[in-house]
């Protein structure tokens, strides 16, 4: 393209023709020159506004505008264009106002959106034609772009003109339509509502003042930066608020919580989707929030707390507590609960209010379970005759009877399962609710004055006994599951362990002939303990594990002893079932007085006198145990309190195999032939002893001796001995003899020992209850002892690592460490700290009384 041969290139000046041609012909007068071009442009703009774009040559128009801008007519052109648009819009407005369509909502909205669309279209073309002005003039003068100018003009001359004549009408129409749809009417104007709403969004105020500089995002986000936000939204929200309040009142008028949740849920759900379609993204959340506040948040607590008759929460949940006793179950109101859950979630995702109210209900209802279980236990006694097989049932039910325990535990578990079902069916399997329900249940399970750990232990004891007897229909797994679930509800795990140990010990010591613990091929005690270990940790149940181990050692020993007895040529040894318990690990209530049977000379306590028939065997066993089994470092004590004896006694009527307690057996042995050589039969001898003599010969303590004598001489039907005089009370001078007339329908006879209380009071009532009460008092004492030790240890442990700590932190740390076992009472902590200060483990800081220091 370069001209060849030219060394120096000449730059051609731009041609003037572009400017001259635009105003074809030579017009010297600048004013006339502008007028001429403007007239052409004006015609073009009008044509554009009449939608006749395709007849115009863009290039010509563009060139005209270009020329005018280049010749500094920019401002004039801009103003003229502005004027023309304004006039056009005022015309259109008049057309809108005057047209008949003003009376018809649908058409009105339609007309407005059409006008708007046409205006925007026209503005686009005008803006295209005046592109050069946009690029040059607008930037220099910092005035709005032509297109934006069009929007501002539309806002000023159509919508806002004459005090918002059209604007207000538009807002009212849209609100009316939306309200109609809320009332359930079908509206046909949806598309136009959407269009006009988006129009209002586009009518931005920022463009009126912000110059050619681009409108930044901030300006758009400003509150009320467009017509929609400034006028429509506030009005819409206030009208909506009134509407919602009214709606809420209508729903409340029926005084039914069920109706209210159903109606509002339906309404909110419908509107949520519908409004999403109409409203701008900024209003939608606001409106939904308003709706939730008015319909849900402000009123839901009232609804939840409505009394039973008015279908509040208590009504929806009522079936849960009813189901426990009902023969035919009816579901709680899952649907209403689900709606409630959703509604509450709308304003609080954690649903604290619902949890709180649910907690109140659970605690209130949960406490009823106690009464229900009590009634159930009583009913079962009334219906079943006294020959109940499972356990010794007493006519009046106390809280630690096994019947109450079973009913209560089962009812509480039932209660819990029903609530969990509600969670899965109505509360979207919300795990936070599971926690909340468990914690609420803990509150009523562990309430003061109600010994849940003991009851649970009784329950388990009862179940295990049933299982080993094969009398229970409940599968092992289910039972274990139940028990383990329940342990979770118990706050004081250490108390449970103590009670459980107590029951375990009793089961073991009272078992006879190595009674099987096997159910379905599993040792259920083993199984249960291993599950508890999994749950509570090894350290918590260390004692239980040791106890369990010792029971097994005892069995083996029993077997070995049996072999030894069989191998004995003299037949001088007696077969024994051995139960050897380490006094450290077994419950104190069982082992505390193991020493008194060897006597204590200092206290004038004579040693227990074992019958001479047994002494040889006992001596042989002691030797075998300490030498043969290498237990020389341990000391063996015999405890006649426990266990049973099997005696074969030949009464004149018949020979009986009698099973009776060790004490009773020892008493009976007094009447037995004293040596093998003696040929005198006991019944011919008519040996007789007074109470005092028996006591002297055995050294059984008074309470036990009276009790045993009552069992074998006073209780009807099973009088192995006769007593003179024949009375219920056992007095010191009463004389006892073998009962020659003893008769029993079977050759095997089992003597049950009457309880200590009945021997003193003489009444037959409350047999098991009172002994159990004594037991639980002892266990309680043991629990408290144990806790003191644990607490002391915990304090020392904490202080040793921290060296100094203020009171509140120490308490906090203690509660944290001990949470898995029990909750120490403030008083207990106080005593413990005082004790440790006294013992110089810790001291108070001399300057700050609140701070403790560890003394190394």
């Amino acid at each position, binding site marked *: 393209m370069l001209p060849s041969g030219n060394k120096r290139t000449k*730059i051609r000046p731009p*041609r003037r023709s572009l400017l001259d041609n635009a105003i074809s012909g030579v017009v010297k007068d600048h004013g006339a020159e502008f007028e001429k071009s403007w007239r052409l442009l004006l015609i073009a703009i009008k044509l554009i506004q009449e939608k006749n774009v*395709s007849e115009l040559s*863009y290039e010509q128009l563009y060139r005209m505008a270009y020329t005018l801008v280049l010749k500094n007519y920019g401002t004039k052109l801009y103003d003229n264009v502005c004027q023309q648009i304004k006039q056009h819009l005022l015309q259109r407005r008049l057309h809108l106002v005057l047209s008949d369509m003003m009376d018809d909502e649908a058409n009105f909205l339609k007309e407005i959106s059409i006008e708007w669309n046409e205006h925007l279209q026209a503005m686009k073309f005008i803006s295209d034609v005046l*592109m050069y002005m946009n690029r040059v003039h607008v930037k220099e003068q910092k005035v709005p772009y032509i297109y934006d100018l069009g929007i501002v003009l539309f806002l000023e001359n159509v919508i806002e003109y004459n005090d918002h004549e059209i604007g207000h009408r538009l807002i009212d129409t849209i609100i009316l339509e939306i309200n109609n749809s809320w009332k359930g009417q079908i509206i046909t104007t949806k598309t136009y509502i959407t269009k006009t709403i988006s129009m209002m969004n586009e009518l931005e105020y920022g463009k009126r003042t912000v110059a050619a500089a681009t409108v930044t995002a901030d300006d758009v986000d400003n509150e009320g930066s467009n017509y929609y936000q400034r006028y429509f939204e506030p009005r819409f929200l206030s009208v909506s608020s009134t509407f919602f309040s009214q709606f809420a009142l209508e729903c409340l008028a029926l005084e039914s919580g069920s109706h209210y949740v159903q109606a509002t849920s339906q309404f909110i759900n419908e509107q949520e989707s519908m409004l999403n379609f109409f409203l701008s993204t900024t209003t939608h959340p606001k409106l939904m929030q308003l709706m939730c506040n008015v319909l849900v948040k402000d009123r839901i607590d009232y609804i939840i707390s409505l009394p039973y008759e008015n279908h509040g929460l208590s009504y929806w949940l009522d079936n849960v507590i009813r189901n426990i006793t009902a023969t035919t179950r009816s579901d709680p109101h899952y649907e209403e609960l689900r709606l409630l859950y959703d509604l509450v979630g709308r304003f609080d995702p954690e649903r604290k209010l619902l949890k709180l109210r649910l907690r109140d209900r659970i605690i209130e209802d949960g406490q009823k379970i106690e009464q229900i279980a009590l009634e159930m236990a009583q009913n079962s006694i009334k219906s079943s005759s006294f020959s109940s097989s499972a356990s010794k049932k007493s006519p009046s039910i106390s809280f630690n009877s096994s019947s109450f325990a079973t009913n209560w535990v089962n009812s509480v578990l039932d209660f819990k399962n029903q609530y969990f079902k509600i969670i899965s069916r109505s509360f979207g399997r919300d795990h936070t609710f599971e926690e909340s329900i468990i914690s609420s249940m803990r509150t009523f399970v562990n309430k003061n004055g109600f010994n849940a750990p003991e009851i649970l232990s009784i329950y388990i004891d009862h179940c295990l006994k049933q299982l080993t007897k094969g009398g229970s229909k409940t599968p092992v797994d289910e039972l274990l599951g139940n028990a383990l679930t329940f342990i979770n509800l118990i706050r004081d795990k250490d108390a449970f362990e103590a009670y459980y140990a107590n029951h375990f010990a009793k089961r073991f010591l009272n078992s006879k002939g190595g009674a099987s613990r096997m159910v379905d091929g599993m040792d259920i005690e083993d199984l249960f303990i291993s599950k508890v270990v999994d749950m509570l940790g090894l350290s918590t149940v260390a004692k239980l594990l040791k106890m369990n181990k010792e029971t097994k050692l005892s069995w083996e020993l029993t077997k070995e002893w049996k072999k030894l007895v069989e191998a004995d040529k003299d037949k001088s040894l007696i077969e024994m079932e051995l139960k050897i318990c380490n006094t450290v690990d077994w419950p104190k209530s069982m082992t505390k007085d193991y020493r008194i049977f060897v006597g204590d000379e200092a206290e004038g306590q004579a040693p227990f006198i074992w019958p001479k028939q047994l002494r040889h065997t006992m001596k042989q066993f002691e030797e075998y145990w300490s030498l043969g089994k290498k237990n020389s470092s341990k000391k063996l004590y015999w405890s006649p309190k426990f266990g049973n004896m099997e005696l074969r006694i030949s009464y004149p009527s018949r020979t009986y195999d009698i099973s009776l307690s060790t004490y009773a057996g020892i008493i009976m042995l007094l009447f037995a032939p004293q040596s093998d050589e003696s040929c005198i039969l006991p019944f011919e001898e008519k040996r007789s002893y007074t109470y005092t003599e028996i006591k002297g010969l055995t050294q059984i303590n008074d309470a036990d001796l009276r009790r045993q004598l009552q069992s074998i001489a006073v209780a009807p039907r099973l009088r192995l001995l006769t007593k003179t005089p024949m009375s219920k009370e056992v007095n010191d001078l009463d004389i006892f003899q073998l009962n020659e007339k003893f008769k029993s329908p079977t050759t095997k006879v089992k003597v049950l020992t009457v309880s200590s209380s009945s021997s003193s009071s003489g009444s037959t009532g409350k047999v098991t209850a009172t002994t159990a009460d004594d037991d639980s008092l002892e266990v309680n004492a043991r629990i408290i002892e144990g806790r003191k030790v644990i607490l002391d240890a915990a304090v020392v442990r904490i202080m040793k690592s921290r060296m100094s700590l203020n009171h509140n932190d120490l308490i906090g740390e203690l509660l944290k460490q001990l949470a898995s076992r029990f909750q120490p009472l403030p008083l207990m902590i106080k005593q413990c700290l005082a004790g440790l200060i006294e013992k110089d483990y810790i001291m108070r800081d001399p300057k700050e009384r609140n701070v403790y220091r560890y003394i190394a």
Partner: protein
Amino acid sequence: MSHPSDDIKGVTDSDKFKFVVLKKVASISSVLRNTQEFAEGRSGRIQLDMDGDILECIVEYLYYNFKYKDKAASGSVPEFKIPTHLALELLVKADYLDI
């Protein structure tokens, strides 16, 4: 003289030169793009008031721009040669066409 096909747009100058340019190439200029809604869009012809050599250079530039617009980032774009003697006038035309 005219090629009213969808993809082709004639850009003609006043002294009877005629250039046929792809629509999407011509659309690089917003002015040329805007014509499409108007009468020019129907005829497929745009009458431009400029000399043939200037217009040729502009068309060349439009193709050059179209070819390399995606490669600007990579830096491997050859230089566009502007005939020195037309430089000033091209500047004015470029402003006019908003290129």
